[in-house]
């Protein structure tokens, strides 16, 4: 019974995590500008990784493997947003400008 619940939970988490990662990938390809792509890559990567690792943790049971998964997850939670921040800061510092809508046009239509 518990094994079944764990399996179902893992399935849901893994599928959700993969879906979010794929969404991030699609966003990388289709977003118009570098700074929007950072949103796609950074946010979805971290969230997708978190979900996938949690799904794997449910499969691992109480063991050293679980501890390792927790450590990798914590490490990625720390470093993935930091890396995105560093890339964004470096891009801004070197003069890359975000693509903005025209300020005069308030009707919501792109010019």
């Amino acid at each position, binding site marked *: 019974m518990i094994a079944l619940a764990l399996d179902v939970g893992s399935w849901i988490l893994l599928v959700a995590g993969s879906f979010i990662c794929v969404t991030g990938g699609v966003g990388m390809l289709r977003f118009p500008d570098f700074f929007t792509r950072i949103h796609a890559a950074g946010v979805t990567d971290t969230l997708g990784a978190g979900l996938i690792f949690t799904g794997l943790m449910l499969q691992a049971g109480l063991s050293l493997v679980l501890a390792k998964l927790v*450590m990798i997850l914590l*490490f990625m939670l*720390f*470093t993935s947003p*930091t890396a995105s*921040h*560093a890339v964004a*800061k470096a891009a801004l*510092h070197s003069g890359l400008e975000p693509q903005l809508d025209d300020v005069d046009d308030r009707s919501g239509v792109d010019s």
Partner: protein
Amino acid sequence: MTAVAVVLMRDLFAVVMLTGIYSLLSASFFVVFDAVDVAFTEAAVGAGISTLLMLSTLTLTGRYAKESTQKPWLALAIVTVTGALLIYGTLDMPTIGSASAPIHQHVAPRYLNDSMQEIAVPNVVTSVLASYRGYDTLGESFVIFTAGIGVLALLMVLQRRRASDVDAHGPMHQHLILRIVAKILIPLILLFALYVQFHGDYGPGGGFQAGVIFAAAIILYSMLFGLSAARQTISQPLIFALSAVGVLLYGGVGVACMLLGGNYLDYDALAEDPVAGQHLGILLVELGVGITVASVMIIIFFTFNGRSLSERGRRR
């Protein structure tokens, strides 16, 4: 394919990135072949430290390779012929993984069968590396040590007590978030290096990987906090001494074995029970390897960066 691109491209930065990807692909091949230790080392060294060190080199040499003035037709012909001969030679070899291949007949079965009784270390790779083939590993650590000495002989800039350091006012100085995150992470990375070092008996790991991870943590610190701060933490005499200590430890264990009655690097003589002796021997030897690898990597990185800093200072 990545290798062809590496050879043909002149943009050295892209070459460095492609080399990193090439190492990563090799590591995944090793994973497919079920060679976890090798994949571990390849991922850490090839994709990690090599990329870092080559990027440091690029700050010295500039980003684009010079146009070569003559087409190397003769060299290309020789390489093609040699390559074709090698491939022709492999046609005769037994298929991958077949049990009747010569490599599986002579020494390997003995290692695989007897390792548990003689050494009682679950990771056969470690037992082969550190005990059965201890001489080879001794040679490897000497090679690494020599590489460090070579870099020092060619590039060493004597550490001057400079009041102002070019690095302290560099752009990285403003990266507060990175520095805080790094301050939290670096101790954990060092702990992980220690874990890999001593867990090498039971899982993938061992001296080489642990040394590389340790050096990577110090390099991270040096990149974010400035070279002078890193040099104050890990002073030059200390790092020079450590690189020698590692190799001395390895050789010293061998000598101790001789003094206690066995052959050179015969760990059975180190303790009452031969298996305990093997464990002790492997522990000390791997520790020596780890210390040497870590210190030599740090020496190379500091030397490359110290040199580029002094050049930049002169250019201003």
